């Protein structure tokens, strides 16, 4: 007997787990990558144009590759990192690797918009590059970075639907297996409704956080 309640709860939990963990990983690794992109560019505080070009191309390469291909291509790496190629954990690796370059580019834009005058003021007061990153770049760009992170999380929720390909489950997978492949419109519609609630919650909380930060500025 098919237990609808359990099936939905499991799917929600799988999605939250996949998006939550890959989101956290994306945040932790995407920000350093964004900082690397911003500080090594021409005129940046760690200007290294060659390195900047290499990293930039790499980021573009990952961003150009369709997620479903990345999912399969990264299987060997996934096995090394999490010891398995199926299930939720197997999906987290490609999800993160796809989301990091995306988020890094979004965060890069916010970091690049920090007034160069502020960096100059910090240099004039004797700040070193670490200080500038910590006290100027990150705090000043934070609202933009958080706005970008909200977008990244929403994109992750979308990509996680494809994680069914490695048996990771989740809401998207439920919609594909029952709603699409078995023509079960009820499942399809209810999953989409759940996804709308999830995406809206993420977007609204993100917006609220950004508004709160901006209000203090």
């Amino acid at each position, binding site marked *: 007997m098919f237990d609808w309640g359990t099936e939905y709860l499991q799917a929600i939990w799988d999605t939250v787990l996949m998006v939550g963990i890959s989101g956290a990983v994306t945040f932790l690794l995407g920000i350093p990558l964004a900082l690397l992109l911003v500080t090594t560019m021409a005129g940046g505080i760690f200007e290294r144009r060659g390195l900047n070009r290499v990293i930039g191309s790499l980021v573009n390469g990952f961003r150009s590759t369709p997620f479903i291909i990345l999912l399969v291509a990264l299987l060997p790496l996934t096995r090394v990192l999490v010891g398995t190629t199926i299930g939720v954990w197997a999906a987290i690796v490609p999800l993160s690797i796809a989301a990091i370059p995306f988020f890094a580019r979004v965060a890069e834009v916010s970091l690049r918009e920090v*007034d160069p005058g502020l960096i*100059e003021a910090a240099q004039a007061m*004797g700040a070193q590059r670490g200080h500038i990153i910590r006290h100027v770049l990150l705090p000043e760009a934070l609202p933009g970075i958080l706005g970008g992170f909200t977008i990244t999380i929403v994109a992750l929720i979308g990509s996680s639907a494809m994680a069914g390909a490695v048996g990771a489950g989740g809401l998207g997978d439920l919609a594909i297996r029952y709603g699409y492949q078995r023509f079960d419109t009820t499942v399809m519609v209810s999953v989409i409704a759940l996804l709308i609630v999830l995406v809206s919650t993420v977007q609204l909380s993100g917006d609220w956080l950004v508004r709160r930060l901006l209000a203090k500025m």
Partner: protein
Amino acid sequence: MSNLSEAQAWATDVGRSARHASVHVAGVPAPDQLSVAFEGVSKQFSSGDGAPRALHDVNLSIARGQIFGIIGRSGAGKSTLLRLVNRLETPTAGAVRVNGRDVVGLSSAELVLLRRRIGMVFQHFNLLSAKTVWENVALPLKIAGVPKQQIHEKVDALLELVGLSDKRDSPPSRLSGGQKQRVGIARALVHDPDILLCDEATSALDPETTHAILALLKDIRRRLGLTIILITHEMAVIREICDSVAVLEAGQVVETGEVWRVFGDPRHEATRSLLRPLVHDLPEEWSARLHASELGPRPRSEPVEVVLDLRFTGADESQPELGLLLNRLGALSQKISLIHSALEPIQGRMQGRLVLAVDLPRSLGLASVDTGLTPPVAALVAAAGKFADKVEVLGYV
């Protein structure tokens, strides 16, 4: 007025040479009294807009405790020059000495120490929007690893000094322009610097606020005895607070000296052009009526007045003695009227012009070949020349 030939515009130095001997000539300060010295500094670079900019062989000495102004049109290179002092810019040639030490070869650790000795204030304030007023002022100390207790004392005292104690927890966005600049000044002073660099610190402010900020800078110099180097494109700022000024034009220092000297007797076209907004011209109704010659298109029987322009450059530190001047001129003419005056003290030296219309005695005589002036006019010019630094005949009405 412009159609008057130079021969008619006759200036005299008669009677002034004796007084000049006593005028103090500003010498170059002794090396240990120097705060900043540019020695043969050049810099080539291209700015953001692609136009090639450069500094050519800049030599300047800035004495300790001075307020030194660098003025120039936009693109003249003043911003770059200022940034050489705390090495936000590096020269391609020459030396920049701060307290006697060339800053060009400093290691990054030495650079940090140097920059703590030099505060900087910016045109657009450059305050961190994610931090409160208090945190902005505290940041330089926090970065330097100063103990919390000390930071608190210092920041509170400085906010008091700039009159912003009640705004300590506000974000900078809630402040007015003048208040933001006060925060910027407090932040620049937090390390007790020897030198304060002001990059167009008042250019984004309205005249009233500009005045208040300049007064604050003067007060700070008086209290803390630091050297202030400021760049501006407004001569009014230089006049209001500077001791000395350098005029920068296309990357070169074209004129430098004490402010009253440069204002009283500008030598370079760039200086004159920068001074133009401050120069009070002869009123239109007079300049339109001026004639180049005494005869003019009028019957010989009508009275003629000569218009004399008495210039005061401030070379004489005493106040112009108007009573004596009028007595002397009065002995030569029945009627003297003041038609225009613009005199004001700069650094305590009276400067500007006094334009008088003087009735000419009827016996005109022959004009001198050298000066183009008739004897009565020459006598008036000579008499006025005993009081003013320069006397010019503007024309006749």
